[in-house]
């Protein structure tokens, strides 16, 4: 834990675990007892609840840019999020667009991640100017694709243009380009 404590010396990390549902039974009951005895703990739990609700609402609204796991992608889909997906191979340029009712655009970036532990994905304009850069993305053993999700609202603001996604990583101590993917962005399409 980070060692942060409430005014009565209780570990605030326990409150986060409690709210996340990672403690049950006697341990949960002890934490609840603490919450009802310690007003500061109650207040901190209220902040944790507010933050967790905020995260959930931002994700539900599709207003985020993040790499995803397959399970998270499935969950978003099950929850009714309208997801437009593009599968990209290194070196290819594919047409893409955002429709009015899209919530999220997911690029499935295929690459050889063997021996790579972390990668960076950069979204660039044809001019080379960067629109975004996400560094330090963890790569799991055996992973062959990276799911990069961008808010459809954000992409709707772009005019028709050619975009480039560049995936870089460090293999055997040497930084290298793992993949370059072209997107012929047709802009915001009518419904």
């Amino acid at each position, binding site marked *: *834990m*980070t060692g*942060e404590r409430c005014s009565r010396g209780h570990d*605030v*990390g326990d*409150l*986060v*675990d*409690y*709210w*996340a*549902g*990672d403690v049950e039974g006697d341990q949960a009951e002890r934490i*609840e*007892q603490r*919450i*009802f*005895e310690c*007003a500061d703990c*109650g*207040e*901190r*739990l*209220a*902040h*944790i*609840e*507010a*933050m*967790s*609700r*905020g*995260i*959930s*609402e*931002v*994700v*539900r*609204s599709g*207003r*985020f*840019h*993040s*790499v*995803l*796991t397959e*399970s*998270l992608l499935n*969950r978003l889909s099950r929850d009714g999020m309208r997801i437009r997906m593009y599968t990209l191979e290194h070196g290819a340029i594919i047409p893409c667009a955002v429709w009015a009712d899209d919530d999220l655009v997911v690029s499935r970036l295929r690459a050889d991640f063997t021996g790579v532990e972390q990668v960076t994905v950069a979204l660039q304009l044809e001019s080379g100017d960067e629109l975004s850069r*996400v*560094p*330090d*993305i*963890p790569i*799991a*053993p055996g992973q062959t694709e990276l799911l990069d999700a961008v808010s459809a609202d954000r992409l709707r603001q772009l005019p028709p243009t050619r975009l480039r996604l560049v995936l870089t990583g460090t293999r055997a101590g040497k930084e290298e380009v793992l993949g370059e993917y072209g997107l012929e962005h047709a802009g915001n399409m009518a419904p």
Partner: protein
Amino acid sequence: MGRMPRSSASTLSAITDEMLAQTIASTAAGDATDEEAELYRRYASRVRLFGLRHLRDQSAAQDLVQQVFVVTLERLRRGEVRNLGAIGSFILGTSRTLAGAQRKIEHRRRGLHETFDDRTAVAMPQAETLDLQRVERCLQTLTPRDRMILILTFYAEKPAADIGAELHIAPAAVRVARHRALTRLRDCVMPEKAI
């Protein structure tokens, strides 16, 4: 039990939980509304959070707050709360009982509402409202892994063990990273508050 002297509004926030409980317990219904409101102010948020954690529903949590305070005030007045110094524990116990039997008490709750409508008409504890655009911006300041851990925890509602399996890290590492990430996010979204 002797009747406690009434507290002025300005001193209410300074008196102990036990003194509040004693005043409510020794005063006729309707004569300790300030003390009742103060007890409510101190504990309603915690009961709501307890309800949210166990019932997973905002409306049910708000209902639980009403039920718990109706029962707490009634039992205080009847002299059925033995240890007034541990009124917090009593409220927690009442929360547990009522949350655990929520379906069974639904009918009873309606009756209580009719009987004690004046006392349950106090304002519901309001959940803190955040600036979602700010949350969105602040989420982007986290590392991809930390952002993923927070999303998997609080949106997908996955336990640390499942997140660890998915991200190939130990559950204990998930907990540590989650707490740190939430603290960073809090510092960015509401720097004046402490988690």
